[in-house]
């Protein structure tokens, strides 16, 4: 579906360490193999290996619906998901769950809608993670929209700095696959000397990252580094405008490009891109809607607001997901979103249609590029703090989560560490305050507005 216009010998994936290539023909062969034994639902436990990327792409080509499972969620959580959704095929290149890497049931047990292509997990800090249901059309549309906005072509070769199980990583794969480009599949990270050698050897042109990646790249002296990388793509939350300007200058100096993008898994995932040439004029903006998409700003009564007025950000486009799945029965559902996504973000459009984000209407916090529900954080924290103390979680920005624990307890360090561990985020992103009295509303709920505006000493 993404490779239809490409010739068989085209390279799609390059193994960063060995240089071994995977061609369009290889993907088609794997897709034919997977399609032969039709599956109602496949779980792909995707690690950083070539095998995972190849299988993900082949499942898309085979039109075989699959859930992308992050091995980092742990064996117990994975087994619980298997139990709940009863996939009839599990492909596990790393052998985390399945010895030998592949397992099939005798007969399909879970019914899936014919349009369904990919299931991605959203924040699931408590209980069972919620899936985002993407159709084949959602994925293909967004791949083409991104390829167009970034003018991707056969010369573009992106390093796999974002995992396949993360919607951003999946979109790097699909947008390059559809436009003739390729990926350099590396299992290393930017802080390993070998990573930069691999990129140079395989001629990687592009890297994708979330805000924390760019903080690292700056500290690692990317601006002065000799490298083949000339395109940087940023998404996954607000990047400090100072860093945006820094990377825009660095890339301009070497004739490259820097793109700021905005999206959510629910939009397959990209909604807007700020073209390189609009910087530094539009510093702080996340750019223009992708082709075929539209951004609207609405007030509380759903009335559309004029430019320069702040309100709820709503996106319309063919890449908006079919819907969520909270149970196996939901997998049989068709599209329930009608191409409209209420993002839960707040912002305004300028007179040129560029979007500036300013906050969130929903209780969501972004940590290391991943959206986490603050209510789920509270539920998780409530189980950690001693003596059933009341807790309130709020956020003062991306990568800044505050948990207030009421009462005279000690051990804020212990709580912070345990919570960070459960959320799988660095403890440095969390602040835990104990022994305070929570401001409350008349209905007894925490007064988040007051908490948020308090000057934290």
């Amino acid at each position, binding site marked *: 579906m993404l490779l239809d216009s490409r010739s068989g010998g085209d390279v799609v994936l390059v193994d960063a360490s060995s240089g071994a290539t995977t061609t369009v023909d290889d993907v088609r062969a794997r897709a034919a193999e997977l399609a032969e034994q039709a599956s109602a639902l496949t779980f792909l436990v995707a690690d950083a290996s070539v095998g995972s990327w190849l299988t993900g792409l082949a499942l898309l080509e085979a039109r075989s619906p699959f859930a992308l499972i992050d091995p980092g969620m742990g064996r117990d959580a994975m087994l619980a998901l298997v139990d709940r959704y009863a996939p009839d095929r599990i492909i596990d290149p790393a052998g985390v769950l399945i010895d030998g890497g592949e397992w099939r049931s005798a007969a399909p047990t879970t019914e899936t809608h014919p349009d369904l292509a990919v299931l991605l997990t959203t924040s699931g800090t408590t209980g069972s993670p919620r899936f985002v249901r993407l159709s084949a059309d959602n994925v293909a549309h967004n791949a083409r929209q991104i390829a167009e906005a970034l003018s991707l072509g056969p010369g573009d070769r992106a390093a796999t700095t974002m995992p396949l199980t993360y919607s951003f990583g999946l979109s790097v794969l699909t947008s390059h696959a559809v436009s003739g480009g390729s990926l350099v599949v590396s299992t290393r*990270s*930017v*802080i390993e000397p070998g990573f930069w050698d691999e990129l140079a050897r395989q001629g990687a042109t592009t890297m994708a990252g979330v805000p924390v990646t760019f903080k690292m790249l700056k*500290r690692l002296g990317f601006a002065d580094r000799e490298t083949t990388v000339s395109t940087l793509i940023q998404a996954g939350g607000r990047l400090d405008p100072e860093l945006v300007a820094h990377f825009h200058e660095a890339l301009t100096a070497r004739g490259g490009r820097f793109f700021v993008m905005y999206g959510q898994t629910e939009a397959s995932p990209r909604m807007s891109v700020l073209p390189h040439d609009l910087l530094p004029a539009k510093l702080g903006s996340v750019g223009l809607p992708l082709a075929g998409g539209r951004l609207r700003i609405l007030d509380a009564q759903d009335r559309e607001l004029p430019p320069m007025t702040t309100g709820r950000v709503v996106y319309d486009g063919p890449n908006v997901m079919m819907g969520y799945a909270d149970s196996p029965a939901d997998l049989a559902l068709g599209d329930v979103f009608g191409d409209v996504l209420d993002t839960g973000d707040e912002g305004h459009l300028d007179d040129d249609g560029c979007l500036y984000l300013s906050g969130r209407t929903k209780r969501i916090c972004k940590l290391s590029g991943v959206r986490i529900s603050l209510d789920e954080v509270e539920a998780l924290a409530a189980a950690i703090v001693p003596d059933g103390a009341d807790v309130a979680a709020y956020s003062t920005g991306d990568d800044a989560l505050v948990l207030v624990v009421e009462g005279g307890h000690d051990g804020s360090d212990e709580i*912070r*560490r345990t919570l960070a561990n459960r959320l799988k985020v*660095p*403890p*440095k992103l969390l602040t835990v305050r104990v022994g305070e009295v929570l401001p409350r509303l008349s209905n007894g709920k925490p007064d988040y507005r007051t908490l948020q505006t308090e000057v934290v000493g």
Partner: protein
Amino acid sequence: MSNEEALKNAFCEGLGVQADTIDWDTLEYRGIEQWDSVAHMQVVAEIEDAFDIMLDIDDVIAMADFKVTKDILGKYDVSFA
């Protein structure tokens, strides 16, 4: 606090772990779940704060385990004798 203690402290803060849960002789990048690339940069920042130094980029990416880190810090006149 000795330099050894200060360094261990920097690692604990950066990685979000407790000292008594760590085997310092074998501690290495990706050797424990907590030491990923993000935590690595935090360890670097903690070390720079603790010893009031600025690590070279090559040293930042060479800091692959606890022992190597001690060797690297020697270049910055931080000794662990």
